[in-house]
């Protein structure tokens, strides 16, 4: 189990879901995530689970809804256009407070876009995505190994908060092969994002009312004031998540000349640029949000007290930078801080050389 294996991101993530106890997978074909349903269709029968190729993305997310209603760990995966279609179901899950894991192997957009790696679904992922006042937790791995760990954690956080959790990767991470080590699920619950906390009892699932009163799962609240009350209840939960679950990786940020701020694939490339800049005598730090919602605003703001040069690297057109600006603005006027942007939309992937060159431009 703990021997490292060489594995493709999409397949490793599927195996991680199984390790986390996911026994229900519902999906629909779309590139670049097709390895996930293919892997699940082979593995689910082996572990006594259910793989079902749904008639649509819409049906798939509603099957995740149904499995959650019945108390099971369930997952769907897709890529950007498919995730757009799932937003209806995600909104209903958030409203009904149902757990579930949704994987988005992001591709270029808008529209059908292309099948190249992209981070263009940042706003959609971190701002709710569907209709209504709600939040989904968003976990952003930057290696295949981290895809495994965060996918396992996603199921725990979904159950802990009764909320949908998004794992946001991209075509590059999904398609690349890397050494991975599958953690022991019990260990992962201690060392991962769950941090050893107990999961709440499933005293709300629908299993038939034998020996108890009938239960109801709904998001329609028509009584005057009832929905507002529910929204405030959700807000409290979201505030708790913001306090408890925010996570970022930092490398050499404290005394950096410039902080390279990026997540996922962009952060991975930024790490190479950091080494390159070091060789050129420039102290560059890395700030990599692991949770995109909740976003590590406070920590980034703290760093902005000492550091006044940032470079945001994103494979989208100025989406992620807005959160960086919001964070920095908590401590300083944006006039006092220079935040550069290297944006590569439409499937463009930045090179370390490009990042290093742009970083030097941002420096005095």
């Amino acid at each position, binding site marked *: 189990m703990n021997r490292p294996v060489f594995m493709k991101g999409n397949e490793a993530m599927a195996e991680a879901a199984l390790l986390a106890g996911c026994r*229900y997978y*519902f999906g629909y074909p779309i590139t670049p995530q097709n390895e996930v349903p293919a892997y699940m269709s082979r593995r689910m029968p082996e572990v006594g689970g*259910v793989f*079902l190729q*749904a*008639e*649509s993305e*819409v*049906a*798939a997310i*509603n*099957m*995740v*809804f*149904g*499995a959650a*209603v*019945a*108390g*099971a760990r*369930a997952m769907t995966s897709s890529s950007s256009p498919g995730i757009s279609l799932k937003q*209806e*179901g995600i909104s*209903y899950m958030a409203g*009904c407070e149902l757990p579930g894991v949704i994987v988005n192997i992001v591709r270029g957009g808008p529209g059908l876009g292309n099948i190249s790696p992209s981070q263009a679904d940042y706003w959609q992922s971190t701002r709710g995505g569907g209709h209504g006042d709600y939040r989904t937790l968003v976990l952003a791995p930057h290696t295949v190994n981290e895809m495994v760990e965060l996918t396992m954690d996603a199921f725990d956080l979904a159950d802990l908060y009764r909320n949908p959790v998004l794992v946001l990767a991209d075509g590059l991470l999904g398609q690349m092969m890397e050494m991975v080590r599958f953690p022991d699920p019990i260990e992962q619950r201690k060392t991962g994002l769950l941090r050893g906390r107990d999961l709440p009892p499933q005293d709300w699932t*629908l*299993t*038939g*009312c*034998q*020996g108890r009163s*009938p*239960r*109801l*799962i*709904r*998001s*329609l609240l028509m009584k005057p004031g009832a929905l507002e009350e529910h929204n405030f209840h959700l807000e409290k939960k979201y505030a708790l998540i913001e306090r408890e679950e925010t996570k970022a990786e930092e490398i050499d940020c404290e005394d950096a000349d410039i902080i390279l701020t990026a997540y996922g694939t962009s952060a991975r490339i930024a790490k190479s640029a950091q080494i390159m800049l070091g060789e050129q005598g420039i102290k560059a730090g890395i700030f990599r949000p692991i949770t995109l919602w909740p976003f590590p605003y406070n920590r980034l703001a703290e760093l902005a007290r000492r550091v006044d040069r940032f470079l945001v690297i994103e494979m989208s057109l100025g989406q992620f930078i807005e959160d960086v600006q919001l964070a920095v603005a908590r401590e300083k006027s944006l006039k006092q801080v220079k935040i550069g942007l290297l944006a590569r939309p439409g499937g463009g992937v930045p090179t370390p050389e490009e990042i290093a060159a742009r970083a030097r431009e941002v420096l005095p």
Partner: protein
Amino acid sequence: MSLKPIFTRTPGLKTTPTSYCPGCGHGVAHRLMAEAIVELGARGRTIAVAPVGCAVYGYDYWNFDTTEAAHGRTPAVATAIKRVLPDRMVISYQGDGDLASIGLAEIMHAANRGERITVIFINNTNYGMTGGQMAPTTLAGQITTTTPYGRNVDETGHPLKIAELLAALPGVKYSARGALHKPGLIRKAKSYILNALKIQEANLGFSIVELLSSCPANWGLTPVKAVEHLEKVMTPVFPLGVFKDETPGQEG
């Protein structure tokens, strides 16, 4: 000498006063479904999925576990519940907008997969909850809020016959259409529901009962006139009967 009860309220229903319009068929359909569930001893292991539409409030009346679903996605939600809990009775209750329009993909594929669920389909030839718009089941010439000149079938299609359509699929083991406007037909409708639930109990496949139901408020008719309309205008378009019954011993 003690009195022996020969008729009681079904424990399948709560005592909630109805919020449905006068003459609406949903209340009758709810009761038939609840009675059938209780008669099969299944109340404690039933999970119902309520649609978007008038019957979204089904859970106000049904005395068993119930979840809502997004509009038309009811069969997808029911599919997963049944896959997770195969020994439970899973019922998808849907109206004609929910099932025959926005949810056509979900119902066709759940039926085609032969999901072990039972669908109760209320056909009242319009969208009730939203105030009476055209549904796929709307009759030719019928006036609705979105067909003010009457439904022109050349432009908007013909009334969709769901019970016949689904009966053609191998995964469907029971498909029948009943009506709720006469005592005899109501009793027959209940027997259809019982048969459909037994198909599910026997793990044979998908079962559906379509029920023609009156909607006086949106038809612009009194309840009495609405019943006449159902009998004289609706049933010739939507014939009553069993279109498929693959209960063992019932074939042919």
